[in-house]
């Protein structure tokens, strides 16, 4: 490979390169900023993410897949779609973090740097075109996330969350690596296109069993990351223990990236053996929907509730992959995009409810009578929750419409009916929160809505999206279709 090609490749990957350099630069800058530097570095990090976003969007031209660094990474429209979501998730997490960590002793600038590094890892993961790139991206983001989970080091529960996440994360990475080594052992390569070619060639003959076993291990590793049942155990504890802003980030960017990675593996690499993996995804999806709905009913902590909500929603997102094909992948992409917007809005709003010591509310009962304290926050939150249930005309309805239409189109009627019924069960806990906000009397004056200024930067755009999506549904759908097309 000559020098010119390296520069051309670096240029194609300029968004990721810029993000890497900027993250390291901010780490240096942060040290020299007076005080804790949280606000300054968060603003600068947000600007870095916006700049990256612009670069990612430019990358869209020419609109075809470009593979770089000897096929280690690929830049296509699928990656662009997912990266836009991830970057927006990062920006939202920074906004939420500035507010949430402001009064914390642990409100330090490293938060912003770790978010940037994690996003870099996620971005590499989405663009991975090789098992090793995949692993590097995954680990880069995971290491940053382990630290973030335990960011509130003075809190026992946060340290526990970090440790739990680290141990289970390491376990899942181990399984992933084991799977990769099996695949390498039986195909002789780690490159996605080459593995896909080998599987296509073997088609007709028996696919070697260890290859499939290897792939199953890879799937398990990823199932941990998207917290699909039965690999979801860590989620409620980590959501509960981590600082609120970190939980918000967990619910958005890593989920989107892991789903993106899963989609690429399932359809670009192992698309030929769909009949082998579809049953695994079927079980993951079914179990996630059921557990997400029923286990959520018993929760009294808002973050645990959101954890089960995210588990259930991952079940819905997987429906699109089960259906497969262009409509199926498009459906999952749409679902993730819409789910992402709703989650960002919900977290931005729930962190504004705080007690006298500026600690965010954690119990559902802390939200009692919220509608009497702030109409704008309570109504926005109510609309976002109704959208989560999937009540039209809100955007969440369309997310469910896409995935269920895809899965019914593929003939999985039982799965669709179970999914729809669990979404009614899950409706109960979203409604419970609305009920607490609107129909209950506030138990004490401890909890107040405080300083919604920064939260508004996140909640208003998401609200506009959730309510206004029905008017212009086509644009996003077109992008998702193009992204899905570039995958197949």
């Amino acid at each position: 490979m000559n020098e010119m090609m390296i520069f051309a490749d670096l240029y194609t990957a300029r968004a990721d390169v810029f993000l890497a350099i900027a993250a390291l630069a901010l780490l240096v800058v942060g040290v020299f900023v007076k005080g804790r530097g949280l606000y300054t570095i968060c603003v600068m990090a947000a600007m870095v993410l916006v700049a990256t976003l612009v670069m990612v969007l430019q990358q869209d031209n020419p609109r075809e897949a470009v593979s770089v660094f000897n096929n280690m990474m690929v830049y296509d429209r699928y990656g662009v779609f997912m990266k836009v979501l991830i970057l927006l998730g990062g920006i939202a997490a920074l906004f939420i973090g500035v507010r949430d960590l402001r009064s914390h002793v642990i409100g330090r600038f490293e938060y912003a740097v770790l978010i940037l590094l994690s996003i870099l890892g996620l971005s590499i993961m989405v663009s991975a075109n090789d098992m090793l790139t995949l692993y590097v991206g995954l680990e880069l983001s995971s290491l940053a996330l382990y630290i973030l989970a335990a960011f509130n080091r003075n809190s026992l529960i946060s340290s526990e969350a970090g440790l739990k996440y680290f141990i289970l994360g390491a376990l899942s990475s181990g399984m992933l690596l084991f799977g990769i080594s099996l695949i390498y052992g039986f195909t002789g390569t780690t490159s996605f296109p080459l593995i896909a070619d080998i599987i296509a060639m073997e088609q007709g003959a028996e696919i070697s069993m260890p290859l499939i076993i290897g792939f199953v291990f890879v799937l398990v590793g990823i199932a941990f990351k998207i917290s699909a049942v039965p690999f979801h155990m860590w989620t409620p504890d980590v959501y509960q223990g981590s600082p609120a802003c970190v939980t918000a980030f967990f619910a958005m960017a890593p989920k989107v990236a892991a789903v993106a990675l899963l989609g690429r593996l399932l359809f670009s690499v192992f698309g030929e053996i769909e009949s082998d993996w579809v049953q695994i995804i079927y079980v993951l999806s079914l179990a996630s929907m059921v557990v997400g709905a029923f286990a959520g009913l018993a929760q009294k902590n808002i973050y645990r509730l959101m954890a089960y909500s995210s588990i259930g929603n991952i079940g819905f997102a997987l429906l699109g992959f089960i259906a497969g094909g262009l409509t199926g992948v498009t459906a999952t992409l749409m679902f993730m995009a819409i789910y992402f917007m709703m989650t960002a809005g919900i977290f931005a709003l729930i962190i504004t409810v705080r007690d006298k010591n500026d600690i965010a509310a954690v119990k559902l009962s802390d939200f009692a009578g919220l509608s009497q304290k702030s109409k704008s926050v309570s109504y926005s939150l109510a609309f976002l929750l109704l959208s989560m249930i999937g009540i039209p005309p809100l955007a969440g309805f369309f997310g469910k419409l896409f995935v269920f239409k895809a899965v019914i189109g593929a003939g999985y009627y039982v799965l669709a009916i179970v999914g729809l019924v669990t979404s009614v069960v899950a409706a109960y806990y979203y409604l419970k929160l609305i009920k607490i906000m609107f129909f209950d009397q506030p138990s004490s004056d401890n909890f107040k809505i405080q300083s919604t200024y920064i939260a508004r930067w996140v909640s208003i755009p998401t609200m506009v999206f959730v309510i206004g999506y029905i008017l212009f549904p086509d644009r996003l759908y077109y992008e998702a279709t193009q992204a899905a097309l570039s995958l197949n």
Partner: protein
Amino acid sequence: MIFENFPILTLMTFLPMLGVLLVMIMRGEDQERLRSNAVNVGGFVSLSVLVLAFIMLFQFDGANPEFQFVEKVIWFQGLNLSYHMGVDGISVFFVVLAALLTPICILLCKKSVTNRVREYVIALLILETLMIGTFCALDGILFYVFFEGVLIPMFILIGVWGGPKRVYAAFKFFLFTLLGSVLMLAAFMYLFIENGTTDIPTLMDNIPSQTAQFWLFLAFFASFAVKMPMWPVHTWLPDAHVEAPTGGSVILAGVLLKMGGYGFLRFSIPMFPDAVYLFTPVIFWLSVIAIIYTSLVALVQSDMKKMIAYSSVAHMGYVTLGIFTLNVQGVEGAIFQMISHGLISAALFICVGVIYDRMHTREIARYGGIVKNMPKYATLFMLFMLGSVGLPGTSGFVGEILALMGAFQVDTLIGTLAASGLVLGAAYMLWLYRQVVFGPVENKDAAAMNDVNLYEKVALVPLAVLVIWLGVQPNFILDRIGPTVEELLNTYYMTISLPTDELTRLGRI
């Protein structure tokens, strides 16, 4: 038609949203004035919608069974969904009913709602948009958006302004309806995939296979049966009615219950004819049980609203009975009964609301002898009570007698059993009236209540006039729904795959 290209349905549907916007942006220090302005704006907007509804009704060509005032714009190209609106004989009167009841509810809140008046008006206006949209939508997904969207404002209406057990009632209402609706959504998606569109006229032309019809019918049935509500999934209705504020009860009984019947006529009969034929006996028996059982339940109620709620379930039994007789009298009777019940039950709930506002109790036993100091109220209440009983000369008579005529043509036993419901209906309504209005004065407060005030008069008198006028002049409605119903049934008997001798027996060859 002078309104050839004028989007009157869109205007009617979305004009209330303009009202919502106006009420939302109102700012000011004087809370009292803010409240009354909100009610005035809401009233004005909804009255404008009512005027438009009457213009539409008089421009409506009753002899034409096709969809009229049709608007069709591409809405979601990626999924091939269109914004397709239009009304025919089946839906036109429901649109007018929704447009009529909303201003009445807004007017009533002037006296009876004291807290969060602005939000109350906003909720009612959003409801109006969704209700009119439901009856106008000619695309399945668009229909679903409106149909299901109703849950949000109604949940808030019951939950915020409701009675002591409002949380339970609101949850029950929401979850029952949602469970039914998601199954309908699944059915819609199946139809979507089969036909590549959810355009309702297109779906009517492409009847699914018989096996598919069976399941699709059940899925739609789940949604509409809960909405109607039919026995045994009616249990949410008494709770919702008892806890809802007067305005919520009026809209619920007056319009929302009709969405179920409308759905059967719009979707089930034209799209799944074979399944409809198969399930007809089941639905007859469910209707008869609803009529007799809920009438008996109504007899023992001590709460006025609960009694009227159970009577609503019984009256909806006549509607399902009429629809599934699948003859012209039965179906026309069902539609007429729905419109008439929309007026009468709305008025009855207002009547209960009138005395509830004065005494803050709905216990029948707490009232008595109020005829002495509330003669006007007693007269109006009597009129609606008799309408509910089905006295000739009121609109209630026409619907029930037509539905029963249809039923007797199909099955004498069913007809006889259903007719016995009329007697039970008379029994509980007359008992209610006697206990509340006549009899000895049980309670000094009850004897000291003032007669109906101006707002209540303005709300009740038009309904009274309509109830009598439609009782005397039912052809005003029947002429306009007749051609559509005949067309509906002709298509039904043409598309159904039955042996010839069976069709001959039904008199269709």
